């Protein structure tokens, strides 16, 4: 269960604090998939990074399976991100020096238990259709293929929460469709809580839960 309660985020500026988020609250259960939409600069990515423990909110609380990541020490927070959260970025953020298989395995380097990691990586990469590209470097892949590697990487440790920041934003339509399908398929298989930030109405339409971030507040946009 993901409980988000009254999350607010302000940034200090010379002209006074700038409120990006204000009183954002929602709950999601395992298996839920939500899309968050909004205009550019609305704070979608900020909300995502707060949910992923990458940024501290100004106020409010988050609880994922009863654990508040911001109450943890730095070391525990890192472990929390490693085990409980999977992240997919708009521009994949693959390590250019590592192969496809190695990129998928990067999160396991700091896991407490690596048992079966290699098999899981091969399996995930097979599920995303890259089993014949395991030794290739990111520079040898297309945009869509890179994003599929990022998807496998995000799921390698079987996270509870999968967060995606514009996962298809840099892709052409065909690749975007493939990635989106894979995303939802794998989410269903692993029963994660999936949250996707997107400005693509088409992508958002494929999600059962939709929210809109407007004027620093999160509004339901339908189910």
């Amino acid at each position, binding site marked *: 269960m993901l409980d988000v309660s009254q999350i607010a985020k302000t940034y200090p500026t010379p002209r006074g604090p700038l409120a990006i988020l204000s009183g954002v609250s929602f709950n999601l259960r395992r298996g839920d998939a939500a899309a968050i939409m909004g205009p550019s600069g609305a704070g979608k990515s900020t909300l995502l990074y707060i949910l992923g423990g990458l940024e501290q909110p100004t106020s409010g609380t988050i609880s994922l399976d009863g654990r508040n990541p911001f109450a943890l020490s730095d070391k525990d927070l*890192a472990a929390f991100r490693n085990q409980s959260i999977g992240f997919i970025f708009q521009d994949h953020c693959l390590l250019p020096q590592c192969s496809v298989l190695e990129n998928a395995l*990067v*999160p396991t380097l700091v896991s407490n238990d690596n048992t079966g990691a290699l098999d899981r990586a091969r399996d995930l990469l097979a599920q995303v259709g890259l089993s014949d590209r395991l030794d290739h470097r990111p520079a040898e892949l297309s945009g869509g293929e890179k994003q599929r590697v990022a998807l496998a990487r995000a799921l390698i440790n079987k996270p509870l929460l999968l967060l995606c920041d514009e996962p298809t934003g840099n892709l052409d339509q065909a690749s975007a469709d493939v990635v989106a399908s894979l995303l939802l398929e794998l989410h269903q298989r692993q029963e994660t809580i999936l949250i996707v930030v997107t400005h693509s109405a088409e992508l958002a339409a494929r999600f059962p839960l939709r929210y809109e971030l407007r004027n620093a507040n999160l509004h339901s946009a339908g189910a």
Partner: protein
Amino acid sequence: MRISTLLARNLAWYWRTNLAVLLGVATAAAVLGGALLVGDAVRASLRDLVLARLGNTDYVIARNGFFREDLAASFPSATPIVSIDGMVVHQTSGRRALSVQIYGVDPRFGPAPEGQQILLTAALAAELGAKPGDALLVRVEKPSAIPLESLHGRKEDVGKTIRLTLGTATPREFSLNPQQGDVRAAFVPLTLLEKQLGEIGKVNTILVAGGPLPDPRGAVTLEDLGIKIRTLPSSLSLETDSTLIPDALAERATVTANSLGLTTEPVLTYLANGIRANGREIPYSVVTALGTEDGITLNQWAAHDLNAKPGDTVTLDYYVWKSDGRLHTDSAQFPLARIVPTASDQTYAPEYPGISESNSLHDWDPPFPIDLHRVRPADEQYWKQYRTTPKAFIALARGQQLWGTRFGKLTSIRISPPLPSFAPALRAALDPAQMGLAVIPVKARSLAASQGATDFGEYFVYFSFFLMVSALLLTGLFFKLGIEQRMREIGVLRALGFSISKIRTVFLLEGAALSIAGAMLGLAGALAYGEVMVIGLRTWWIGAVGTRLISLHPSIASLATGALAGIATGLATIAWTLRKLEPVTPRGLLAGEQKRHSVKRPLLVGIVAALLAFILLGAALARVLDQAAAFFGAGTLLLIAALCLQSAALNRRSSAFIGGLISLALRNAAYRPGRSILCIAQIACATFLIVSVDAFRQTGDSAGTGGYRLMAESNLPLIHDPNSPAGRDALNIPPLEGVQFVPFRLRPGDDVSCLNLYQPRNPRILAPPAAFLNSAHFAFQDSVPHTANPWLSLDAPLPGGAVPAIADANSITYVLHLKLGEDFTLNQTRFRIVAALQDSLFQSELLISEKNFLRLFPDVEGYRFFLLDVPLQRTQQVTGTLEEALSDYGFDIQSTEARLAGFHKVENTYLSTFRSLGALGLVLGTVGLAAILLRNVLERRRELALLRAVGYRPSHLAAIVLAENMLLLLLGLATGTGCALLAIAPAVSSRGGQFPVASLSLLLAAVLATGIGASQAATRAALRSPLLAALRSE
């Protein structure tokens, strides 16, 4: 997948940046290891020279006098030789070589000259321009058992000239004294030299090879020690070759005699010029002092001749040779106590060459003037009948008061009864060392000296310090660039659950791998750097070592130290760079955000560092702190302060309006403050070094000559006073108007200046005359206690009996490694440094008072060092006149400024080395600056492309980039120059405020030009790439 796999991938992928980091560490390791290798090279080379030049000689048995050649047979593997200082003159060309070591050798030594041959070492032959068959004149001091500075010492013609022919063989380079310069030695046949010196069958040196320290006590005879025992009818008479019995021998003989139940009667016999009484006079009479009876006792003959009776006043006139180099005539009066029968007893008087063996007074050939017109037939009659039988007797104490010398106060000791066992008992009781026969472990001593007075390894570490700092700054710079390049990657890893400590570990492991690889590469670099430095010491910087015989002797220890230090410093630099990782959030890392650092911390650190620096400077100006420590400490703190304050200024969020291209450039420089500060630091460090080193350079305007234009040394001692008409007459010097000599006594020894690479074990000692101490010439750096005229401290007694000594401050600090007020021991005598001369011409020796000199070294006679007060316009003429007149003495004149220049040359060579290496550091700094400039421009290609798109011309872009680069360069120059000027202020002030403005300005202009060149190169490179294409790319 393991962390090691990720590491390997990272190292390979970012190979360009990693290569730069690796090269930075390699440079630091190479420089440090190479510097240590230089120290090894110098030490090992000096050691090699010692071993090569001593051959298989381990010990030397030597005496200031001659002993039986056969004594050598008492020791295994012993070779007798004669070893003396002298000069060699090429008869045809007249070329002279002074201060040459002359060895009398035979085949026991090795290949030896024969007949009338002489062999020269290669360097000496080259100096004289001599070829085989050339005639050479060897001139040496004639050995004299009788002290020259006594009445009976022969003072004229103190040298002996031997004409020889140069042989074809080149003898081995043999030297008993450790020296880095060429060996200037001449080898003559032993028997020939013995004969020419009048010492047939005698030598003064025995070389012993191997084995334990030889003990001569069982083998040496009394004759070897210059002691004679004459058997008289009812006693023994103990005498010496010198005719005077040293106090130590007198004391030992008395104790020995008493231990055998014998009685002793000490005797002092002297020659009176005249005995006068009642208007009459007896010329040239022997007088003996013994016993305790007051007054004077005349023999019958004398009393009758003087018509004297008890109670009459009798006057003795006599010559005394005083330490001012003149013969004085003194008189003493006595009441006539008794008249004794004239009994013939010549045994009271020692054997006086030129007198004792003469058949008549008219045949006398004494070493002092006599007026033969005073000699009457009656005197000749007395001489015929009684020879040296004394005509008068006075009390011993009175005689010693009138005629006692530093060489001894007795001419004989009578021991009765004449027990045959006295001689062996005395021999057993005597310590040969106390009698001047020393056993010297010459090889061990020379090897110890080869450790060097100057640790070149340490010096080159100092010289190379900023080069290492530059290399490490570059290492940090490129590693930092690498991290900045991978900020997003770090953000991804944080997002994937890598903790900051884990990420730091990964980077540290990468850094460790690069440091280790760099250090390994640095090993090869160390050998190359060391070799280049050694070549430098043999060529451009030969002024620092004075020899070309230095070669690299790589040692594992130095290479390992360099490598380990390279790893440690490289890793430390990288770890320091990694501290900055944390403050940006993972989100910020992903967004490429740069954390704005606090302004307060660098500001605080800067202020504290500045305060500490000024405290150190104040302490140095107040002479509470050593100037070198103040320079390094304050200089480092000032640099830290300046850089911290600039860092604070750059970190401050500037909301200043961008009003033009220049202000835009300034804002750009402040955008990545860490990089900018590193650039400024590199330029500042190198500039600091170059400015401060140049300020210490000696310009030759020193007051270290004391106002004297000329100085001189002679191979043979001058006994007469060249300032007196009689002395000039005796020395055959023509009148020299306005020329004043200041004669110094000289005890030869090791040079204690920077010209000698070997550790001085037996320093050269000079003693100025008493009048010189009052004249207050020469500047002092300091004295203990502080006094207006530290020269007078030489005569002041010290508690504990230490002998006060003065030396030059440079010698004290850098060669002797002593402090003012510190004691040191030489030949069981404790000396104390009471004053330090400032940059004087006395850097090669210690100075003590003449009184202490004569007490400690009674056997060292005459004067061999001179300062000459000469009018400026006559220096050349006086030099030529004196060198010719005193050529038999090997008189060599040098200008005092040339002497000082010789010392300055060493110091300036060190500074040149320091500056050269600092310049290398500057080159590295410029490379770093150029790399940063290029990196900055490449990173901002899209930004610059945008400016072009909105109408900026290429010249506008060039101006922006140039302005940004110039800011860093000028800040670096200003920081380095300003900090250097402050740091050197105490040292410059104590040296008299000299500052070479012209050369410094030139230097800074060169640095500026180099920096501008680098900036322009970077700008051109950036503008050459298609900027507009950058707008289209991600």
